[in-house]
């Protein structure tokens, strides 16, 4: 099993619903976020190209945050989801410094917090909150090992990219271009 997510940069309108849905679903402390929307603008009107990306933890197969964690608080569970166990985390910040995507942050309670791919929902057969709430349905989630999952199907049909694959992290968050 290998969970992954694909975000359609052509369908995303940058409404940030995914961000609010995540904050509500996961009780993210005020002033923090586990996902965010990036707008890349090339050129100027009328010659203009805009790419919108809903970003979050890439749940890397070769996760530097898990590698550098001194206590094993950062770990990978079945399906490749990268999680933090608060009672093992000492809050040293090594994982935060090691993430090329800056996807982690220190929770006000001290431990490090991040996107969980809404594992609590996924276990019950639901989609992550950000995927479920997207008004343009631009996000796809599922198991890459299952050829019929939403994410497998869309990745076969469309061209996609990942963010800085040259960092060697083997990210599992795909952007349809």
């Amino acid at each position, binding site marked *: 099993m290998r969970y992954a997510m694909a975000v359609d940069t052509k369908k995303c309108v940058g409404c940030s619903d995914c961000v609010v849905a995540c904050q509500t679903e996961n009780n993210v402390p005020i002033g923090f976020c586990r996902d965010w929307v990036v707008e890349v603008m090339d050129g100027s009107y009328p010659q203009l190209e805009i790419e919108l990306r809903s970003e979050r933890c890439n749940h890397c197969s070769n996760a530097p945050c898990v590698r550098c964690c001194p206590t094993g608080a950062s770990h990978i569970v079945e399906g490749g989801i990268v999680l933090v166990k608060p009672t093992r985390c000492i809050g040293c910040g090594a994982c935060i410094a090691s993430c090329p995507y800056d996807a982690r942050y220190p929770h006000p309670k*001290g431990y490090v917090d991040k996107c969980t791919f809404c594992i609590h929902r996924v276990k019950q057969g639901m989609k992550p909150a950000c995927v479920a709430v997207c008004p343009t349905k631009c996000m796809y989630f599922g198991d890459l090992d299952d050829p019929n999952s939403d994410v497998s199907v869309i990745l076969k049909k469309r061209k996609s990219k990942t963010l800085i694959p040259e960092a060697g992290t083997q990210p599992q968050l795909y952007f349809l271009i």
Partner: protein
Amino acid sequence: MNEELIISGRENLMVDPQLHIWHWPIPLYLFLGGLAAGVLFFAALYYLLGKEDEYRAAVRRVPFIAPIALVLGLAALFYDLNHKAFFWQLYTTIRIQSPMSWGAWTLLVITTVSVIWCALHIREFFPKWDWKYSWLKDIEAFFNKYKKPLAWVMLIFAIITGVYTGILLSAFNARPLWNTSVLGPLFLASGLSAGAAAIVLSSKDKKERLLFTKIDLIILGTELFLIVHMFMGFLASTQVQIEAALLFLGGPYTMVFWIFVVVLGIIIPGILDLMELRGKHIPALIPGVLVLMGSFAFRFVFVFAGQVSRWLY
């Protein structure tokens, strides 16, 4: 025009707009750890070479800096943790791939060894010292008997401590400025030069001062070579590394790096060391303090600039 914006407004504390997860305690610890490593390395080395009586300050007196520096450094590290109550989780596991994990264990060993070493030489400062309890005397006798193996352990762990502070940073692929293997030897060299400077500052013996001035000069030269080597590596690498190097070559850290680390911390004390060796009388205080300050500034500049450097996407 190319513009990249986080339009949902990410303002995660200590991560945005620029990573600043590690503050002053980290470079302070890196300096104190490097200094302790340097001091203990020379103490063990000259003890094992049988020069204990010749280089009294280096073997017997200056090592007293080490446990103090290490304990202060550990306190700084502890202060920087965000989830302090769980710090003991460090000592429930060894994770080979995490330099911080084996570094934590190394610190445990080197701190203990440095305390034992100082206990064996306590009579340098308190000639009438008495351990009072017989079991303490037994422990002293035990380590006096096995002082040579103890010195070997100290030598090896001093090197590991010196190198690991650099490897700790170089293991972060996400921060291109840190992600160079030169950082290990560079931090070791910086720690050793701080150790040699501490010995020159403390020693009253002319011969010992001259020897460590010579050692200091060689290490400062090595450091300068490694710094040049590091920039050559960066500039011949990818855009990501080039931009990391540019932080020091015209970017915001240019002045502080070249003035405080290179000129005041390496070149000027190097010249003063050379003048001293040529027979000119230079007060030991000046090059010694400059080297210590340079070593200190080096850690600060590197920890802060490293957090600014990033991948481009």
